[in-house]
């Protein structure tokens, strides 16, 4: 296997457009993104940029961070899902942002950008290219994200019933409670810690104080889950430059795995696919982990499945305060990269897809 390095990263931080009702603390300003313009950085609201401009901003930033130019890139791979924008072939227009000319070796996955990174890593192993550019973008603010995610369900049996994601996550949470593995207070503690950490994170636009013992006074939405147990959707974009020979944090292992969708055929108190993905990525025990959480109980399941008992988990606040569909997984890789750049010996980045942690991808990054 060729050793692949994360040489450069770029991102438009998650912009939460609708402040959740349970959030308290100072009122938020509309989030703004800093984008390089002809006369220096410009501050723009997320609505001011189209998808191509979002992609341009993050890919240009990642290449600059890597000290490389567009001409150095041998392979481009991106992740997005047109359903979130409600525009067929939105990914085609987004390609304008990366300047795919002269024609490049290029591919696209309708998966999180972390999976695009996986394809790029495979391509670098194939050996014909040495530099890959990966990007992802998501605009959940334009559409009904929960309803879009419900359309992932089996179209014959489940989707016509239209259960929202929190209803399915509620099944998983209740399974944990019934098995004596967690309490509602544990879920609240995960959320409160995430928001506290996010308030201090440079790249998170949200800040709110959630008082742990008052959180349980809120009504359940899908018992035992409350509104705050679900991640807040946001808009954003991210890009990563991978190189086959380099000095940046190295990918020690990367692997993914899937469980059946059917909730009746798997033990919801654990995540077999997360455990298998971690093992296939080498099974290294990380010092720090960045998880892709859609619901707070997933933190408890993943702590066990990914061997995180001793690890610092989501010091950035993670994705509960701001989850960008199709982008969050790639953003976890960026956060893990920064932990390794900052001195961590080994960092884990996680990405999930499907209901109740159905599909999981694990990237282990180590110092070069």
């Amino acid at each position, binding site marked *: 296997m060729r050793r692949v390095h994360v040489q450069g990263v770029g991102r438009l931080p998650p912009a939460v457009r609708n402040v959740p009702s349970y959030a308290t603390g100072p009122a938020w300003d509309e989030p703004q993104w800093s*984008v*390089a*313009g*002809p006369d220096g950085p410009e501050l*723009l609201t997320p*609505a*001011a*940029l*189209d998808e*191509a*401009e979002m*992609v*341009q901003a993050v*890919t*240009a930033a990642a290449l600059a961070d890597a000290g490389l130019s*567009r001409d150095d890139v041998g392979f481009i791979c991106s992740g997005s899902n047109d*359903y979130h*924008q*409600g*525009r067929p072939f939105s990914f085609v227009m987004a*390609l*304008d*942002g*990366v*300047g*795919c*000319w002269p024609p490049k070796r290029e591919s696209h996955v309708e998966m999180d950008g972390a999976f695009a990174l996986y394809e790029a890593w495979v391509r670098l192993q194939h050996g014909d290219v040495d530099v890959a550019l990966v990007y992802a973008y998501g605009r959940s*603010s*334009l*559409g*009904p994200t929960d*309803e*879009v995610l419900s*359309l992932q369900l089996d*179209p014959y049996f489940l*989707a*016509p019933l239209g259960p929202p994601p929190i209803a399915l996550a509620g099944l998983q949470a209740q399974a944990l409670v019934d098995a004596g593995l967690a309490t509602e207070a544990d879920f609240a503690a995960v959320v409160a810690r995430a928001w506290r950490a996010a308030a201090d994170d440079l790249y998170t636009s949200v800040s709110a104080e959630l008082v742990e013992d008052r959180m349980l006074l809120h009504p359940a939405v899908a018992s035992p889950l409350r509104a705050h147990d679900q991640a807040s959707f946001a808009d954003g974009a991210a890009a990563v430059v991978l190189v086959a020979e380099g000095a940046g944090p190295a990918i020690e292992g990367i692997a993914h795995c899937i469980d059946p969708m059917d909730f009746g055929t798997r033990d919801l108190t654990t995540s077999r696919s997360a455990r298998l993905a971690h093992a296939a990525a080498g099974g290294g025990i990380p010092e720090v982990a960045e998880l892709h959480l859609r619901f707070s109980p997933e933190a408890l399941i993943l702590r066990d499945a990914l061997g995180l008992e001793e690890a610092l988990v989501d010091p950035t606040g993670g994705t509960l305060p701001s989850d960008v569909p199709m982008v969050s997984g790639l953003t976890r890789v960026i956060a893990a990269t920064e932990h390794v750049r900052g001195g961590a010996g080994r960092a884990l980045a996680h990405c999930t897809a499907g209901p109740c942690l159905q599909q999981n991808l694990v990237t282990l990054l180590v110092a070069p």
Partner: protein
Amino acid sequence: MSDSDHTHETAPVTRFKAPTRLDYTVTAAAVTADFLRHILEQRLVGRRCPVCAKVYLPPRGVCPTCAVRCHEQVEAGHAGTIDTFSVVRIPFEGQVLEPPYVCARILIDGTDAPLLHIVGEIAPEEVTLGMRVEAVWDDRPLPTLARVRYFRPEGGTP
């Protein structure tokens, strides 16, 4: 359940309808918002790439070949040349225009990439490659490219 019927309980269900509705709030980014504001004033204003100097109409936020943001606005003409076209004769669900109609790629004067639009006031079989056409504005203040109702042969119908 369109094909299943309670009176035929033993018949297998082979298909059913599952209508899906998703509502989106589409936002025009700043570059498109500028373009739409101009089109309300019956002006076609594109943008020029600072690197390759090509002018795009509708304007592009990012030059598709140079991957840089485009800020300079350029007033384009109201006439252009038919680059290529087809005559749509097939009816289909959700179609807005009555077939047959001419769908053309028109290179507007002062721009460098063709715009897709309709050609009217001429029989479809009379349309030719390279034909000069001009915009016919709609009276209604539509903030869309439909503000140009269609293009017609320059100087009126031949």
